[in-house]
């Protein structure tokens, strides 16, 4: 799916909880085959944006298209990794049970997951390095392992576009590196990956596309163009300090080691 049609097209999107606008007039186009970070302070509406794209929240206005069609028609192309903390990990289920849930959409009504679903689930678990944990009860996993399980569930969905909400939150450094590697593999396979991300230091290293969000969309585009000091200031307001000013001409990569956000 590396045609010209954008993977995600958001037009004039406004979302409000009761009367409080949380997203205001968002226009966002994401080309296929990029690994995009959605960046913004707490409460900026990052989760809300993803949930609205996925049809979990009804917008007050605006439209979302996935490869040119509404989400409801393109579900099979999309996989979703919710924030890890959004579910109860004491639920009575094994790792394998949770990963197989990723096949439920394709399975349809009344059919139970069988041998094929198990194989796919084991494959996905192997990709996230969790195959020995297949029969482990999910409450016995560490935060990083829980995140890998969620990732494996998205992998068995075998999608074109992946949405992940804070996949690095509360995971250890090894898991973070493993996840980043996996995301880059997905992009290399032509998939589009959208990740809500918190850590400004690693943006340039992890992503090739970025959207800066704080109720409004401040900037979006290739990291080298959109991830600028002025855009960051506009996104984070006064809560950001650039320890060593951004060296002009140094490309998009290095100089952000000194960005500090106070909250």
């Amino acid at each position, binding site marked *: 799916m590396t045609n010209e049609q954008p993977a995600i097209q958001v037009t004039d999107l406004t979302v409000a909880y009761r009367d409080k606008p949380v997203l205001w007039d968002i226009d966002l186009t994401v080309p296929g085959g990029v690994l995009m970070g959605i960046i913004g302070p707490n409460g900026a509406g990052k989760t809300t944006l993803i949930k609205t794209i996925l049809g979990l929240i009804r917008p007050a206005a605006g439209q979302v298209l996935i490869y040119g069609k509404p989400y409801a028609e393109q*579900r099979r192309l*999309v996989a979703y990794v919710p924030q890890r903390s959004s579910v109860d990990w004491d639920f*009575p289920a094994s790792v394998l049970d949770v990963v197989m849930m990723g096949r439920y959409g394709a399975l349809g009504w009344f059919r139970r997951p069988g041998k094929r679903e198990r194989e796919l689930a084991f494959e996905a678990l192997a990709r996230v390095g969790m195959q020995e944990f297949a029969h482990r009860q999910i409450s016995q996993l560490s935060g990083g392992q829980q995140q890998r399980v969620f990732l494996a569930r998205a992998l068995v969905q075998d999608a074109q576009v992946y949405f992940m909400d804070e996949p690095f939150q509360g995971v250890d450094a090894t898991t973070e590196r493993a996840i980043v590697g996996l995301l880059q593999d997905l992009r290399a396979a032509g998939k589009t990956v959208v990740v809500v991300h918190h850590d400004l230091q690693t943006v340039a290293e992890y992503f090739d596309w970025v959207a800066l969000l704080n109720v409004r969309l401040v900037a979006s585009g290739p990291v080298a163009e959109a991830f600028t000091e002025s855009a960051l200031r506009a996104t984070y307001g006064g809560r950001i300090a650039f320890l060593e000013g951004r060296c002009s001409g140094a490309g998009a990569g290095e100089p952000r080691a000194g960005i500090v956000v106070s909250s």
Partner: protein
Amino acid sequence: MLNDLFADYTLRTVALGSALLGIVSGVIGAFAVLRRQSLLGDAMSHAALPGIVLAFVVTGSREPVALMIGAAFACWIGAMFVAAIVRTTRLKSDSALGLILATFFGAGLVLLTWVQQWPTAAQAGLDRYLFGQAATLLERDVITMAAIGLPALLILALFWKECAILAFDPDFATSIGLPVRLLDVLLTSLLAVAIIIGLQTVGAVLMSAMLVAPAAAARQWTDRLGVMVALSGIFGAAAGVIGALLSSTATRLPTGPLIIVCISALAFVSLLLAPRRGVVWAWLRNGRLSVMR
């Protein structure tokens, strides 16, 4: 005692009815507990009371089927009110549930008192729906309970994986295109079925324990959803039968409350003693650790 069970027709009917009620409320209650909707079960059971009295006022008969239909309606309307309050006001769901429980139950008590002052005799015994009166169970009541309870279990089995994913991760369920609203309505309706099956035996006041306690006990013994739900049904049924037997031997004690005592004891023991999850085990483990240190 077991001989009585086979010989005594009334006892057999009561025990069978209590077992049915235990299975249905155990299985369906397990999903309510996993979805953190224990309080919804409580509010809906209390909300059934005005439905029962109004059904009597409208039909003029104490026919259990008519009263059950009235109860089901009231449960349902109560649940809808809760949802509407949460959607349209700033009240959180626990407040909405408390409000609906108190309003409906209060209205039910007022209606009940009013009806009981009627000069006719037909209304006598309506108050049994407060705390239940298993001794009044007839064979056809048990057949009615089975006729609505077993299809409810079958429906749950058919939509098993959808209900499981709805309970674990509703956002993900929505994202893969499941009609989450409809499934929610389905599970709420099944909850109403479990409640109306229990009203005659256990009563509106104590019914919520029949929904919560078997599941709480079952969760302690297993980490697998299917096993937990099955165990919850078995625990409910066992409490039902034991309660019925106890009440038949110690004559003056009422069946419904005895069933509740049994299932509560089972839940209590499970919370304390179940391997791994039990309080005592955690305590022993910590004790041993500190000794080793």
